[in-house]
């Protein structure tokens, strides 16, 4: 499942302080280009980890793109998130090769261990769990990806162990 991409409690957005100056350069660079909406959203997400509401408003005002159009595009593509996510996103591959080699077990073990459901973020905002279509490492199925690192030939227990170790490693 995709990460919950629309923040149901829109009031929460305002409590998050968003430094809008961070996107000035991005807007400057893309403002005059044709078909700039997707690169703008991608760039904003790189900066904030998701696309906060004030960022939408600022881009809309400065580039003259209607908010409705921006929202339409942002909710169409799997890449865009409209709500904050954990520090690390665990992407569990559910491509065909992983599916027939029991990717379900990986997701279920992680859900149990992290006490969150697919698409959710842990309370401490350390991990977000997401199932994705295909990471293209089918020969290593079942696979998960955390950051740039891919872990292959997993079992449920092995996945849980890796996730725990990353957290331990960062706490020390």
């Amino acid at each position, binding site marked *: 499942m995709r990460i919950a991409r629309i923040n149901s409690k829109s009031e929460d957005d305002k409590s998050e302080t968003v430094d809008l100056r961070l996107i000035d350069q991005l807007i400057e660079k893309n403002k005059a280009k044709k078909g700039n*909406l997707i690169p703008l959203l991608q760039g904003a997400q790189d900066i904030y980890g998701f696309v906060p509401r004030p960022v939408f408003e600022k881009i809309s005002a400065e580039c003259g793109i209607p908010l409705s159009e921006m929202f*339409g595009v942002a909710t*169409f*593509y799997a*890449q865009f998130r409209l709500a904050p996510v954990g520090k690390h996103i665990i992407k569990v591959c559910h491509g065909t*090769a992983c*599916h027939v080699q029991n990717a379900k077990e990986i997701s279920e073990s992680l859900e149990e261990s992290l006490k969150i459901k697919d698409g959710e973020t842990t309370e401490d905002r350390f991990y977000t769990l997401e199932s994705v279509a295909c990471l293209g490492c*089918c020969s*290593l199925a079942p696979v998960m990806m955390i950051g740039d690192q891919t*872990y292959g030939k997993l079992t449920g227990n092995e996945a849980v162990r890796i996730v725990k170790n990353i957290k331990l490693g960062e706490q020390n």
Partner: protein
Amino acid sequence: MNITVTVGLGSCGIAAGANKTYEKIKALKEQENLPFDLQKTSCIGMCYREPLVEITDETGTYIYGDVNEDRAVEVIEKHINQQDPIREYIVYTDLFEASENDFIQSQVKIVLRNCGYMDPESITEYEQRHGYTAMKMIVMQNITREEVIKTILDSGLRGRGGGGFSTGLKWKFANANKSEQKYVICNADEGDPGAFMDRSVLEGDPHSILEGMIIAAYAIEATGGVIYCRAEYPLAIKRLNIAIGQAHEKGYLGKNIFGIRGWDFDIYIKEGAGAFVCGEETALIASIEGERGMPRKRPPFPAASGLWKKPTNINNVETFANVPWIILNGAAAYSKYGTEKSKGTKVFALAGKIRRSGLVEVPMGMTIKDVIFKLGGGIKNNKRFKAVQLGGPSGGCIPDYLSDTIVDYDSVNATGAIMGSGGMVVMDETTCMVDVAKFFLDFTRKESCGKCTFCRMGTMRMLEILERITNGKGREDDIQKLEELAYQIKDNSLCGLGQTAPNPVLTTIRYFRDEYEAHIMHKKCPAKVCRPLLTYTVDQEKCTGCLVCMKNCPAKAIAGERKKPHFINQELCTKCGVCFSKCKFASIILT
């Protein structure tokens, strides 16, 4: 002669730990000042033996498999320091019979000609391997646009993205439409779950894609080029960017390229944002224009009115990779491979329950059986081969008894599957075909853009029926309902996604009807995959009485004492499968 040590650093190699292997070898070389050149290359296709390290010395070339850090130390010590190759670790060499020799030798490498044989980040190495020679030849011999298009037409090359439309014809149409501005687009939005051919080519040989696009641009007089690449392929994007920079420096991209006055052509990369439907060419164009990636009605075809309403030619990665080779070697050299209507070679990504998962390139006309058994080494863990899924969510499952079907567009279509982009996912007796159909339907339902009602609603309804069947609540007329819906969706959808979405269901019904019936009539899953249809019991002889299943059972359905066999209360059991996955002694039986 110098000794070279080359580490395979494709995505799959890196995932298997090749970066660590590379760093280890680098450290050893520096510490002991060892006399060899250390190089990087990309995927050679043997993904199942990654990380791979190739050593070339005066005696020949040797590829070592499964080289983790420890093995790297061992290999360097023995092979380099003592000149004593370790035979048991060698997976391929031309000097003696190694375990994977037949894997390499039964292939015909045209698209993958450079993958795994050179450093993908070096334009010099690409040129040493006849890179950019095809385009230079066109310039030097004054070959006209029409002649280039004729060569591609004569070669019989058909679109490798799945459609199978003649590439030469596509170019001809785009060339015929005159305009100040025209575009060439490379479709690198490889979204099929279970397919990774394009990724490997982009990572392993990015210049061949650029050269293919430049030749296409020459043929249709294009002024701009776009590579639409999945954002999930960061390494491919990085290497393409490096390649584009190098091509600029050489004057192969930019202004007055290849010394042709007034010919300006440049390529940029557009990162996809994750939508399967963008593999469809009109949706892809909408996405480049910054809109929701929804398909448009054809005609007008992109060749007449494409990107920014200008004539546009879109080809797939693999198609472009073929182009320089065809120009250089001639149409006849290409069309000598293949069948009457499908020429050349096809790259397949072998995955699933197969021994050697990886990339293979075979001439069209080879039987599926040969691809799976001769090249793929057969089924993992000596299980029985049941079916192979071709073409991803748009394709279908071909059963074992049709495995003599040959690989060509028309023969594969006749089975109800499609050639697709080349994903081949192999399934054994432990794969439930209803579950597989459900998996693909779930995928297409999520990825349907929502424009056509039949695709948007129809896939949802089909999925609901499949969920009902796999949950043990199937109804007698469900198969018929699925078929009715399937044909409605096929007939009434605008683009390829909807038109092909029902294929996995239709082919599994056609070839595995008995499995559907077992689920519906007898409430049983023969492959033991659909949990609600299984009964969990404890093997009284194997159970050691360790209490693990009991403690983990969320329904408190397991009773027993320490060191005595446990029991499952069937009335309380929710069939969640936790006991089965937690038991270390394989004593939970599924029936």
